[in-house]
């Protein structure tokens, strides 16, 4: 079974803090994605990566950055957390154009 894990299920941070969300997949997938999910807005793509050290902006990259130093690991970084970044963050991975597999999600609250 494909397994995508995320470093935290719940996280509470203060405004202005730097926040790291980590995602690890064990299926040797080259593609990895970060989405955020908000009520009424659905899933929105933040960043994605096709390969190690490669990254591409998604639909809502502002306020975020990413890092992919190893194939299995894709990190999302909030440089200076703000209250409007309170959300559910979902990581996914895929092999080529096939279906994406999601992690359990991290519910981030910024106070």
């Amino acid at each position: 079974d494909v397994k995508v894990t995320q470093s935290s299920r719940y996280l509470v941070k203060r405004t202005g803090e730097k926040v790291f969300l980590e995602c690890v997949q064990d299926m040797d997938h080259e593609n990895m994605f970060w989405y955020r999910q908000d009520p009424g807005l659905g899933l929105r793509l933040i960043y994605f990566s096709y390969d190690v050290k490669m990254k591409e902006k998604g639909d809502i990259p502002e306020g975020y950055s990413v890092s992919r130093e190893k194939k299995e690991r894709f990190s999302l970084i909030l440089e200076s957390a703000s209250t409007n970044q309170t959300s559910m963050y979902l990581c996914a991975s895929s092999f080529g154009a096939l279906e994406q597999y999601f992690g359990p999600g991290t519910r981030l609250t910024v106070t």
Partner: protein
Amino acid sequence: EDQVTQSPEALRLQEGESSSLNCSYTVSGLRGLFWYRQDPGKGPEFLFTLYSAGEEKEKERLKATLTKKESFLHITAPKPEDSATYLCAVRGGDSNSGYALNFGKGTSLLVTP
């Protein structure tokens, strides 16, 4: 720009009462339509991929179908454990986001005993 609209937003069924969820899409060159199930507080779980009009996929009480403009997720004789949010997503050929998916907002299904 790819667009995905799911209806209804919410659906309540009695156990055993069959129904269908709709996913209407606008995409330039469909490269795949995906159905996911999401339980509260969890990540989406992959169900089906459909690639061309006329294609059908089945899994237990679920059957997904595809036309050139929409997809249906048919639920036959649902059970309470089928309660979840069902998400539809598309990948278009002209997407600037490569292999990323464009998701609808989901249909929240509640099946009561």
